[in-house]
């Protein structure tokens, strides 16, 4: 701590003056290389006041948030993508460059910059300081991970560094909040600014590196010793035999936990939905409105909401794996397998995040520079078992497969069935990739470069924010798309309404539509009720649960049964298996189709993808229905 305690007094005498004088800047850009802890600082500055959107016209996500200064003023913080340089070659670098130079009409030119660098790797990270300082915008250079630097025996003279750079500097630990007052002081405009210095020629990487080396040398920078724990953990996680074994164990543990721990929490939410539904039924007079709310909305939307704990648990695990640094090792282990189907390790991370949701996964493929590799990854991503399939799988597996253990308490039949479905989707993706990469999307390979970050404990704050974010998305979807579909379904189940009574289900509009398409789906072992579910599931996969919840909820025969039992009685085992296979392959998600259209710049690819996946789903389900009878 002694190195930085006096840095308020460091450097020259002039005080940083933001344009617009006495008031603090309206917009501040946050930039830094990948793995510098930029997002941790962003989370600490803005907390829950964050918004994620897309920069119009491109696929780069725009994270903005509001930060509150001690005096109550609010600042708009723009979190730019992690980049190694500002020379605009990738889309990320182009956006960072354009925002910082005020060339984007949709984003105000930042009046100040926070440049976040990893203090344990200053020599290399300082290279980015050259192009940033050259912009001439007031900039605070934030050296993050002060705790790591200290613990591992590194040191730096912050006063000397500030003098060499001609810019204010701060040594902080964003994870614990240490040194944050220096950042807020800068944002409030009260940090002294040293005299500007000459900068190296920006286009020349070796010269930039030499400059960074000289600056850190002048600041008596002593790099910390290699992270001991990272080496020790890599000895296990990258061990030729243990590594893949650990990888497998992690995957099994995740699924087993989702099943065993999620159940009680699911029951709790289920109970809440049921009790509140009964309460609504008791306060409303019997009639159409009561039926719409209780049978339509509550049973429909409610049967989707009960899966929120499970979906959050999946995101919790993915968040921990990503934030701890293990995901990069998993990508390394997977690279050779990916290479066999013609893809690369970089495709692995979007594909893994497609297990959560294909939409952000497809957006994250922009890190793949090779366009053909990128398209192939986009086309296979919806095969990965996304969290919207999880409720469908859970429901049908729980309805048809007994909860018996195969290997002691470690692996149950239900877990095995679930993993089988995940593998099925993965295989479909692999085979499709292989075909695409050896035909229409054949390409030369671009170099594979993947930085291995040091292992770190994930922070509750960052994981908590992710879960909060996902809950919002999940509930918004349940409250909009699924609610709308459910209400439309309820209406079509009440038409034609005659003599103050709804029609018998088979004769309603929904029933008529269902029975019209029944001949098409009969060979798959589905009846017309499931058919209606499949139609509504085109909007979003989990809608089928809401639909079936409403259908069985309105049907007097099944009204008193739970959804699980009603499905068990209504489907044959073959039909249930076929339904699972159908969901594993089909592209039932409007959001995914929309994002593919945007990313590939036209309808050609999403149309081909939808046709291919639907055909595969139909054939797969047909085979499944005839394997088990």
């Amino acid at each position: 701590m002694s190195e930085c305690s006096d840095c308020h007094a460091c450097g020259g005498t002039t005080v940083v003056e933001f344009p617009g004088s006495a008031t603090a800047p309206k917009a501040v850009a946050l930039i830094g290389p990948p793995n510098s802890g930029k997002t941790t600082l962003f989370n600490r500055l803005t907390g829950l006041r964050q918004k994620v959107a897309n920069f119009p016209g491109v696929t780069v996500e725009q994270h903005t948030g509001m930060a509150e200064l001690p005096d109550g003023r609010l600042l708009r913080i723009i979190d730019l993508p992690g980049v190694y340089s500002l020379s605009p070659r990738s889309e990320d670098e182009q956006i960072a460059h354009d925002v910082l130079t005020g060339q984007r009409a949709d984003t105000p030119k930042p009046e100040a910059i926070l440049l976040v660098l990893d203090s344990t790797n200053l020599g290399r990270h300082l290279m980015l300081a050259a192009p940033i300082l050259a912009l001439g915008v007031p900039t605070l250079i934030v050296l993050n991970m002060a705790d790591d630097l200290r613990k591992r025996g590194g040191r730096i003279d912050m006063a000397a560094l500030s003098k060499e750079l001609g810019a204010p500097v701060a040594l902080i630990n964003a994870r614990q909040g240490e040194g944050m007052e220096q950042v807020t002081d800068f944002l409030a405009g009260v940090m002294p600014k040293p005299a500007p210095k000459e900068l190296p020629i920006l286009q020349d990487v070796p010269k930039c590196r030499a400059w960074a080396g000289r600056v850190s040398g002048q600041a008596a920078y002593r790099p910390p010793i290699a992270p001991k724990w990272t080496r020790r953990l890599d000895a296990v996680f990258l061990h030729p035999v243990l590594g893949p074994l650990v990888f497998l164990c992690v995957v099994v543990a995740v699924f087993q936990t989702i099943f065993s721990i999620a159940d009680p929490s699911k029951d709790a939410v289920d109970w809440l939905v049921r009790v509140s539904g009964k309460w609504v039924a008791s306060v409303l007079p019997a009639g159409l409105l009561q039926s719409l709310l209780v049978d339509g909305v509550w049973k429909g939307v409610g049967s989707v909401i009960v899966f929120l704990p499970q979906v959050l648990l999946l995101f919790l695990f993915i968040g921990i794996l990503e934030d701890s640094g293990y995901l990069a090792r998993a990508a390394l282990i997977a690279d050779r397998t990916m290479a066999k189907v013609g893809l690369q390790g970089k495709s692995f991370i979007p594909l893994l995040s497609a297990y959560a949701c294909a939409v952000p996964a497809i957006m994250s493929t922009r890190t793949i520079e090779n366009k053909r590799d990128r398209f192939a990854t986009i086309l296979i991503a919806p095969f990965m078992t996304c969290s919207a399939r999880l409720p469908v799988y859970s429901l049908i597996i729980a309805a048809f497969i007994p909860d018996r253990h195969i290997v002691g308490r470690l692996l149950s039949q239900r877990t095995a069935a679930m993993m089988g479905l995940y593998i099925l989707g993965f295989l479909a993706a692999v085979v499709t990739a292989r075909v695409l990469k050896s035909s229409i999307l054949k390409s030369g390979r671009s170099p594979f470069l993947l930085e291995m970050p040091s292992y770190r404990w994930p922070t509750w704050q960052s994981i908590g924010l992710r879960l909060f974010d996902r809950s919002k998305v999940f509930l918004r979807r349940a409250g909009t798309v699924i609610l709308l579909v459910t209400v439309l379904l309820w209406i079509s189940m009440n038409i034609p309404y005659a003599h103050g009574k709804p029609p018998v289900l088979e004769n309603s509009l929904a029933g008529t539509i269902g029975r019209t398409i029944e001949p098409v789906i009969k060979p798959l072992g589905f009846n017309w009720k499931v058919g209606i579910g499949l139609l509504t599931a085109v909007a979003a996969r989990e809608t089928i649960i809401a639909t079936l919840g409403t259908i069985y909820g309105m049907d007097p025969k099944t009204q008193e049964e739970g959804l699980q039992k009603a499905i068990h009685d209504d489907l044959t085992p073959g039909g249930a298996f076929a339904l699972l296979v159908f969901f594993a392959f089909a592209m039932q998600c409007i959001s995914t189709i929309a994002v593919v259209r945007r990313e590939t710049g036209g309808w050609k690819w999403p149309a081909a993808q939808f046709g291919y996946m639907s055909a595969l789903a139909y054939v797969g389900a047909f085979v499944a229905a005839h394997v088990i009878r």
Partner: protein
Amino acid sequence: MQLSGNKIQPEAFSATLMDLRRGDAAILDRIDLPGDDARRLMEMGFLPGTRVTAGRSAPGGDPQVFQVDGSEVALRRETARRLKVRLEKKKTPRA
């Protein structure tokens, strides 16, 4: 591999990063890749004159992790063999 002298004879030992085994270190000499690819490697720390140490690898030896300029970066063998190096003498005391 033992080097006899300090004079570099490029033809005699055009070793690449791919030839390094775990724990071996070498000085990067040049990158035989097109401009943009080379630049990306340089931004990640692979600058000519930098010391590179071979680390662990994925099962099967590919890709391999290299320690370079304070960080660890994984490269496939097909990339690693485009990075020519001068081998360091074994047991050279570190600066």
